[in-house]
Every structure is written in C-alpha cells, then in structure tokens.
C-alpha cells in the first residue's frame, strides 16, 4: 500500500503540469479563497491560484529536496561507516566521537543552525538534511562492516593483494546495501518533514515556488476565512510521509525475510 501511494505521489510530481488545466502561478483575484468545488477540487488560495495545481507541483519540490538530501546523507554516511568499520582503531574512534557530537543536536535544531549559516534555499535545505541524517547511515554501515570484515572472502582478497579501496567498494559495499536501502526509504519520510518544516519557517524552498510547507505558512494567516488552506497541504505532507514510512516498513520486512531464508 505504501509503495503504491509513493508511486502515485511520484507520478503526480513528475506529471504535475499535466494533471490539472490550471497554471499553479496564475492569479485570479475574483476567485480567491474559494472552498473546494468541482472546477477547483481543493479550492483556491489567497491569490485565487488553484490549490490542486500548486500541491501537484509542490510534490516535485518536496520529493526532490528530500530525495537529494537523503542521497547526500547516505553517500556521506556509507563512506564514513565503511572506513570506520574496515580500518577500526583511531579512524573508528574519531568517527564515533564525531557521530556522538552530531547526535547531541536535536535533528531540526541542527538543520536550522546550518540553514542560519548557509542561508535559506532549496539546495541548502538538501545539504542540511544530508548533514543531519548521515550519522544514522554511518552507524549502521559501521556495524555491518564489523560483522563481515573478518569473513574469509575479505581476508582472501586482502591476502592476494587487492587494494583496500577495491575491497571496500567491490566486496564490502554490496554486503551493507540492504540496510542502507531500508534506512533511505524510511529516511525519506523524515526528510520530507524537515523540508516542509524549513519551508514553513521560510527557510527552505522560497516563494513563489509552491512548496507544501510554505503553503501551510500562508494558510495559517487565512485560517478563519479559508480553513482548507490550513488542511490540504498538511494532508499532502502526511500522506507522503505515511507512504514512505509504510514502504520502508515493507522493504525492511522483505530484506529480513530474505535474510531468514538464506
């Protein structure tokens, strides 16, 4: 179910300009703050723009920022985790202490502090998501590498003179990918929440781009006159996060099952 919903939201994001006849940026002041109706199934916003068109395009921003943020986190985390697990010793000690330092910050606080320094923009939001979440991947990969680094095939590769970089990439990396894929799928939900929170605070995707978070921030100003503006973007965020959480649970069960039958 999660997978189907995630695919559907992904398709809406990809085909955003074609899922509605309305231009998400076209203002129509005569139709401002209209509740959901047949011509505008999700209503219109304070500038008379069609909310469905804006939500569809907003999916693109949310998914791209979250996906690239998760990609940054996994590349950093997997690389650091591989090195710490394989080399051990002082490399592992330093990595573990750096991870401890990053874990000393509540997730959203670290993201906000990074945005404060880097400045608000979608690219910086991706970087912030990456720097906030890399520790999870590093810890999981490190433990996975520790479990396999003394296996015979690794020792054999080492004995015949295979360079460390090749052992890490060709032999160890494929063995730690399953938990990374699970983490990345589950991490998409968290990343979408961070992205929408940053956009809600005006620190992520910048207007007039129709991000879900910023749409909610605008909706908050019109809660009395047009409650749908405070509800619709939130439902979009919640359904997307739910979809990736369910998908992540499914992928985890699948990889666990494969582990059991092996």
């Amino acid at each position, binding site marked *: 179910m999660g997978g189907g919903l995630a695919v559907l939201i992904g398709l809406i994001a990809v085909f955003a300009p074609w899922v509605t006849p309305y231009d998400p940026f076209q203002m129509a002041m005569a139709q401002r703050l209209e509740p959901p109706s047949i011509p505008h199934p999700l209503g219109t916003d304070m500038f008379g723009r069609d909310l469905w068109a804006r939500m569809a395009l907003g999916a693109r921003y949310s998914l791209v920022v979250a996906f690239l943020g998760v990609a940054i986190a996994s590349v950093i985390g997997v690389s650091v985790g591989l090195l710490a697990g394989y080399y051990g010793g002082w490399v592992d000690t330093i990595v573990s*202490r*750096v991870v*401890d*330092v*990053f874990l*000393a*910050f*509540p*997730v*959203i*606080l670290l993201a*906000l*502090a*990074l*945005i*404060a*320094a*880097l*400045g608000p923009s979608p690219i910086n939001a991706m970087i912030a998501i990456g720097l906030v979440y890399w520790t999870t991947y590093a810890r999981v990969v490190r433990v996975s590498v520790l479990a396999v680094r003394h296996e015979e095939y690794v020792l054999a590769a080492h004995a015949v003179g295979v360079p460390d970089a090749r052992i890490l990439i060709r032999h160890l990396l494929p063995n730690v990918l399953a938990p990374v894929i699970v983490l990345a799928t589950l991490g998409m*939900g968290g990343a979408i*929440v961070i992205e*929408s*929170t940053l956009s*809600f*605070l*005006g*620190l992520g995707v910048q207007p007039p781009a129709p991000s879900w*978070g910023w749409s*909610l921030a605008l*909706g*908050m100003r019109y*809660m*009395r006159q047009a*409650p749908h503006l*405070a*509800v619709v*973007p*939130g439902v979009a*965020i*919640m*359904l997307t*996060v*739910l979809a990736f*959480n*369910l998908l992540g649970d499914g992928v985890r069960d699948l990889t666990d099952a494969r582990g059991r039958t092996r």
Partner: protein
Amino acid sequence: MLRYVLRRLAQMVVVLFGISLLVFGLLHLVPGDPAALLLGQQATAQDIARLRHVMGLDRPVWYQFVQYVARAARGDLGTSIFLGGQRVTVLIGAHLPATAELAFAAMALAVAVGVPVGVLCAVRQYSLIDVVSMAVTQIGVSMPVFWLGMLFILLFSLQLRWLPTFGRGMPLPAAFLAMLEGNGAPLVDSLRHLAMPAMTLALSAVVLITRMVRSAMLEVLGQDYVRTARSKGLTARAVTYRHALRNAVLPVITIVGLQVGALLGGAVVTETIFAWPGLGQLLINAISQRDFPVVQGATLVIALVFSVINLAVDVAYAWLDPRIHYG
C-alpha cells in the same frame, strides 16, 4: 558503577568540545564575509573592517575558537547584534524557563497517555483498541508538528473557542503560588495557554512511548515469571502492573530521555506557531535576522542540555538495572 560514570563523563567532555567546535564553525560556514553580510550592501569597507575587529574575525581561526570556548566556559556567549546589544546569556536566561515549562508539560502528557495506552494495547493485543491505537500512532508519526498545531488552533480556538490561540499566561510556578494565596485564575489561564502547545509537542513522544511500552510489555508478558505469577493466582492487574510493567519500563526510560532532545527540537517549531516566548522563538527570530551570536548561543545551550540529559539517562539506566554491568 563509579568507573562507568567517570568514563561517560570523560566521553562527554569530548562531545562538549565537538559541540562547541561545530557551533563555532557555523559562523565560518557563512558564504563570504559574515561582517559584510551583516552590515548589508551599503556598508563601507571601514564599517566592515570595524565589525570584523569587534567580532574578532580579523584574528586567526584557532585563536577565535580558543577565545570562544574560554568565554563560553565563563558563561559569556557574546552580545546580540540586533536585540539592543543585550548579552546572549541574559536573553537565553529569559527565554529558557518558558521552553522548560513547555517541554516538561509535553513530556508529562506523553508519559501519562503513552504508558497506559501501550500497556492496554499489549494486554489486549489485536483487539479493536490495539488496532486503532497502532493506526493512530502510524498516522501521528507522519504528521509534521507544526501542522498538528494548526489543526488544534482550527479546532480548539477557531471552531470550539475553548482555548486561546497564542501566547503564554503567568509562569506556572508563579501561578501555583498565586493559587496557594487563594487566587486560582492565573493558574487556569496559564494551563489554558499551555494546553495546545503541550499537546502539539507531546504527539511524537506519545507515539514512541506507546509503541515502546507495547512491544516491551508483549515481550515481558510471555516470560516464565509472569506465567508463574499468574499460576500463583495473582490478579491480572497485579501481574500487569507489579510484575510485568516494572521490567518493561526500563527501555522506556531511555526513550523518554532521548525524546527530551526531540522535544527541545520540536519546541523550536511549536513555539513559533503558538507565539510561545521560549528559546525556539528566540532562535527562529535570530535566524531570520542572521543574529549569529544568539543562534550560536541558543544552539549551544540546547545541545548542552540534551547531552546532560542523555548522560543522566545512561546513569539512571545503569543504576536501575542491576543486571547490566558497565566496565
């Protein structure tokens, strides 16, 4: 035990050093010259040079870091660039109690709801209440905290008109004192203001605690000593609460401790929605004004509080569970 505590303390010193390095480094992540950025486009080269000198940016980076740590250790976190040059420690001191009040209320609410619901779900596994609770936690974990706050405002303020939309009443301790002197109105007002922000902030902790208690209880309820307790003829209530919950509660303590950090983070966003005058609001305003000393100070203090709580949780865990040996 003492050796374990000392080792954790030593680890914490390293973490504190790392935290201050990261917070200090934030200013140096700023693209371009922070002084030029702060002064805007109309600033002259002389203005920029003067501000660089005031901020210490004309010194070597290592020197700036040593100075920053030395000052922070003395409780000097610098002065705000925008808030009338006020000392950052004074600003934090003025905003911290409101955040502490909110986080404490949210955690109390989360434990008060999460533990009984978790126990009930475990005792009646696969019943209607279990299925509904698990579905609600799945949805709850997918809801951004700021949206939940907005929905509460829509329902409790705008539709039902039960609760005030934003702001904080009298600080709770003062309101309690007023009640003891016979005036209960300030306490009622404070609690009405606190209700929505606390419920909003509590959500993620409620979800985690419910799930954790449920799974820990399910594990414990299948153990032999619980079966023995049942076969002795003890009541279901005594078995659940006196025998099972006592052992199931240990992992929950860790979650509660870790959730305090998440609550401090969540408070940043929650305070913005409800105009709650805490550290979060101070931080968000400072970020939008690029008031770096305040951003650094608030971040540092929240990370420090989080680290100290984590240490306390670890020590409490070691003390509470005699089976665990910490070398």
